[in-house]
């Protein structure tokens, strides 16, 4: 195989790694949108908080002398999922629930306020400087010739794929098999009707925020470990990109969010691999605008039928 092939493969692997975490965040957008038809603007901040909690837990466990990698990762995942769930729940209670049913602009603005608030809360509590963590997972699998040019699939990337896959499988099982999951799907179809049938839709809406937040925490833990650097402002970009992924795949559709996340991740990796890393953020927005222009319902979304 020629060198260019391994270069391409490497970009593809990097893209899929980042893309699968975008997908995790995008699921949060898409689920909330599917049920209440609104964008959770503060979702990116939840991801950022997830990263911070992960770093705190990892540092704390390291101080306690725990060095087993699975234990470290599971500990970080669990704690940060619990904390971000509380954030997701609170965002819904404070910024969305009191404002449901009025002018659509109002919850949107309150959610933006919430996003600014959370970002600055973390900035005040943790400082605005970058926090770096040494790599916990080193090394990887070489693909291609041992000497010369080859692609590398790092162990961290493998962990990201595995954890993402497990989270998504659990989510799918929950939605398709459990009673709550069925209620969620019913709410997405028709919120008012589901409420009339005696299901506590308030609880279901809160639950979608919580699930979305927990998945964002998973992404926060994984990406935090992958990049090794966090600051209070990472939520802004990540949120925007995950939203783009959700729109690309078709907002409201969970498989769409996954597909969109992966595609966006690959598109970004290709841009930074073949053009310039500085423009990879521009790619996301260009994709967003192009999708909205030519196929606003996304790849897997249903076109919206207006109720006249």
């Amino acid at each position, binding site marked *: 195989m020629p060198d260019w092939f391994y270069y391409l493969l490497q970009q593809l692997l990097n893209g899929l790694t980042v893309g699968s975490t975008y997908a995790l965040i995008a699921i949060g957008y898409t689920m909330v949108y599917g049920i209440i038809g609104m964008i959770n603007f503060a979702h990116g901040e939840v991801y950022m908080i997830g990263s911070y909690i992960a770093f705190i837990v990892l*540092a704390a466990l390291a101080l306690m002398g725990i060095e087993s990698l699975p234990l470290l990762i599971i500990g970080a995942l669990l704690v940060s999922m619990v904390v971000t769930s509380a954030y997701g729940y609170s965002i819904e209670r404070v910024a969305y629930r009191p404002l449901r049913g009025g002018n659509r602009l109002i919850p949107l603005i309150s959610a933006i306020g919430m996003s600014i608030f959370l970002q600055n809360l973390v900035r005040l509590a943790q400082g605005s400087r970058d926090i770096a963590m040494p790599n916990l997972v080193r090394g990887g699998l070489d693909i291609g010739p041992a000497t010369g040019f080859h692609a590398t699939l790092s162990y961290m990337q493998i962990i990201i794929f595995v954890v993402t896959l497990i989270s998504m499988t659990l989510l799918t099982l929950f939605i398709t098999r459990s009673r709550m999951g069925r209620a969620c799907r019913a709410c997405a179809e028709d919120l008012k009707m589901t409420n009339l049938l005696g299901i506590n839709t308030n609880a279901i809406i809160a639950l979608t925020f919580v699930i979305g937040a927990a998945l964002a925490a998973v992404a926060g833990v994984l990406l935090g470990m992958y990049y090794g650097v966090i600051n209070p402002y990472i939520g802004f970009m990540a949120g925007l990109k995950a939203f783009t992924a959700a729109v690309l795949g078709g907002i409201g559709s969970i498989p769409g969010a996954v597909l969109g996340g992966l595609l966006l991740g690959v598109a970004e990796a290709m841009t930074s691999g073949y053009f310039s890393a500085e423009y990879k953020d521009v790619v996301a927005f260009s994709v967003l605008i192009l999708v909205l222009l030519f196929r606003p319902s996304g790849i897997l979304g249903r076109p919206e039928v207006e109720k006249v």
Partner: protein
Amino acid sequence: MMRNLKPALISAVVVVILSGLLMGIRLSQQGTSLVLVGAGADVAVKIAGAALFIFLFNLFRDQLTALWLKVPALPRTPAAFSILAARPAAHRLFWCFLIAAALIWPFLTNRSNIDLATLVLIYVMLGLGLNIVVGLAGLLDLGYVGFYAVGAYTYALLAMYFGIGFWTGLVAAGAMAALFGFLLGFPVLRLRGDYLAIVTLGFGEIIRILLNNFTSLTNGPNGIGNIPKPELFGLEFSRRASEGAQTFHEFFGITFNSVHRVMFLYFLALLLVLLTLFVINRLLRMPVGRAWEALREDEVACRSLGINPTAVKLNAFTIGATFAGFAGCFFAARQGFISPESFTFIESAIILAIVVLGGMGSQLGVILAAIIMTLLPEVARQFDEYRMLLFGLLMVLMMIWRPQGLLPMKRPHMELRT
């Protein structure tokens, strides 16, 4: 009360989960390793206090609601203002008085106050411009700062490369921002409101990223300096005139005083604000102003009556962008130096907070909010660090308790006289 015990307990626990780790422990970098620092007893006390407060609040929420209902309702609009709004003559008199005060005031105060007032006026202009988009047309534009940046850089670049003056630059900046607004609005305004919010947010970021990375043209993060100051009919406000020009103090035969320039800038900003106010007041009484309100109420009905929603929204979006362009040009001229740092999302958020606080669609409210938002951080320096935190909180609370803003105003309704 016992009924509320469980939810109250849950809320208190949630507060502890929310803040315990994130506030209670601080990550700190020591060399290459990461260490944890306990945040200290005061933070623990604060968290406990917050949890207790939430617990009690939820426990007694029924009683509190009852108590709240007993409190006489706040007037929807302060009485003085509703009288004002009702009587056009009083309304006009009030505005004349306000303008007169704004004209006389700089002669009575000192240089730094005038300078601060000029800053306030820039935010008034931005707030009024964004209010056309958000308050009147009901479109949430989160990338307003992008148009502000386009305006500022248009003037700065044209001045740097082609040596044009402020007044030409002002027109060019407005036109350029309008063009950007048009090009961006055209594809996205057909879509639902929340998409617009995200796309504009992305647009603001793209502009900043491009300004940062197009180093050959924009000088990147280092910014552009030596942007020419505005002049009055060719009269410069400097100590010595540049070649072939004349200075203000020479022309009028007075001694040079640097306050003149500060005052001139103030009056210029005032002029721009008055222009903005005039335009908005006319827009409200024009078919397009009515169409905006109709569109906010029922887009389907509008379409059935032959109104093209995209075109009408595009009007608002472009007009709003134009004012941001004017403000950007003035900002560049006043500062003399601009860099992408001045055009972050925070700016957009502050402008939006001004609109939200003032009241969507209300001019007087926006002016008041711009004054509050700009002066508060100046007055209370120690407050500066918490500024954005409080802005965020304010936006949430305003939406919950008073979405119509501090001084809501209704559009002047057209009357049929028979």
